[in-house]
């Protein structure tokens, strides 16, 4: 490589002279083309900073969208399906809020473009996109882990006034709507000799026949894998739920009990067929 350094320095091509009247030619061109000095607009350096701050702002919006997406997935109850391994993975995927995911990705795209356009981050666009995605994902997950969403939701549910977008999201979208013929989740409200009765987060009660030898107490949260039978549900597998995690599904209990939201209706019809309109 050193040889190449030396040789490159030695092989500098000679440059011919420009015509003597070159600068005059420029002035003539300016006059011929009636060129004018553009008025001072936003200085280039200022416009770069504007792009940078807009990009960062959009990244924060993406972070909030990511947090809301995570919260919606958590609240939907679809994560309960994954507790039984990968056999319900496809069903879980059906519950992913694709519109929110798409919106988040678009915002990340916008933020990437602005950050790249600012020219203040001297990296390729792919690297900036990866960074923007990582910041939004990690930040969104961290925000979701602080349980700020649960606090906002409980306040919003108490409010009688409607706050645009926020009320719609926390009251309508981010609520339990997992509805699967083979998986149930609920709180034990009554026990008999060979069966129990659970209440799901929608307020619906179901009689459950448990696997032999299992013991439960009233007030416990359970998730069950099994099948529907004439008089209720026959459980093959039973798991105890974390009361804190499962408890949040019931935050909407006081609101429109027994009423399905739009998403819940869609999934109910998908899982049980068009004709079954049972709540």
């Amino acid at each position, binding site marked *: *490589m050193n040889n190449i350094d030396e040789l*490159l320095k030695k*092989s500098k091509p000679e*440059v011919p002279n420009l015509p003597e009247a070159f600068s005059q030619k420029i002035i003539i061109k*300016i006059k011929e083309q009636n060129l*004018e000095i553009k008025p001072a607009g936003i200085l280039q350096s200022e416009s770069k900073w504007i792009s940078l701050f807009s990009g960062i702002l959009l990244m924060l919006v993406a972070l909030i969208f990511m947090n809301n997406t995570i919260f919606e997935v958590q609240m939907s109850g679809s994560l309960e399906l994954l507790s039984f391994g990968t056999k319900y993975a496809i069903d879980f995927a059906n519950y992913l809020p694709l519109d929110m995911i798409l919106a988040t990705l678009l915002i990340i795209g916008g933020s990437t473009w602005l950050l790249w356009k600012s020219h203040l981050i001297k990296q390729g666009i792919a690297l900036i996109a990866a960074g923007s995605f990582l910041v939004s994902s990690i930040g969104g997950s961290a925000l979701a882990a602080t349980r700020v969403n649960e606090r906002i939701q409980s306040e919003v549910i108490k409010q009688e006034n409607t706050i645009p977008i926020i009320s719609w999201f926390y009251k309508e979208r981010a609520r339990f709507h997992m509805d699967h013929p083979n998986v149930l989740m609920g709180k034990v409200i009554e026990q008999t000799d060979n069966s129990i009765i659970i209440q799901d987060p929608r307020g619906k009660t179901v009689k459950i026949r448990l696997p032999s030898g299992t013991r439960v107490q009233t007030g416990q949260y359970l998730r069950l894998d099994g099948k529907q039978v004439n008089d209720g549900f026959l459980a093959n597998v039973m798991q105890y739920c974390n009361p804190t995690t499962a408890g949040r599904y019931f935050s909407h209990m006081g609101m429109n009990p027994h009423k399905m939201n739009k998403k819940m209706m869609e999934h109910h019809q998908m899982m049980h067929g068009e004709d079954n309109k049972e709540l």
Partner: protein
Amino acid sequence: MNNLSESDALLIDATINGDQEAFQKFVEKYQKPIFSYLYRFLYQNSETAEDITQSVFLKVYQNLSNIDQTKSIKSWIYRIAHNEAANYLRSVSRKKESLLNDEQWSNVSTQKEQEEDISGQYGEVIQIALKKIKPKYREVIVLYYFEEKSYDDIAVILNSSTSSVGTLIRRAKQQLKKILEKLAPEIEAIFIVLISFWLSKRGRLI
């Protein structure tokens, strides 16, 4: 922080106030380095380099009010030249402009026996190889080795980081070396003859 020299600031103010002679002086101050960079970057075609130098200064004129005074004005003009050269390269087919054909290459090869011309020929070989590497690599070679710009200056011109400039130069040299080896299998021999010749001229050989 203001990076404009007093003389540049005076010329720019006078131009903005309608004094075109001031702009002529401004052009005279910077035309040579810009033309030199474009000539060496754009395949040593003086006509093309002259045309693009002209459009560079027309752009400079139009944007005089929006000069970023925190940056060096010379780098700003180089940056405009870089953009204009990139637009030009996009608009023409690279093949049409760049490569010497086989006949031209063999002419170069047959002359290389003559010892007195070895240095010049080697320069020619390097120039042929430079025409074959990607424009982004050729540009950093031109800026660093021929225009003797620092990494920091090149980073401003290319709107990149100093470390990226280092990477680009390293890759450019690797690509150049590969092409040199491909172009002339006896290149190593030429290296030795050339270096021996150069040292003997300096009286370093026994």
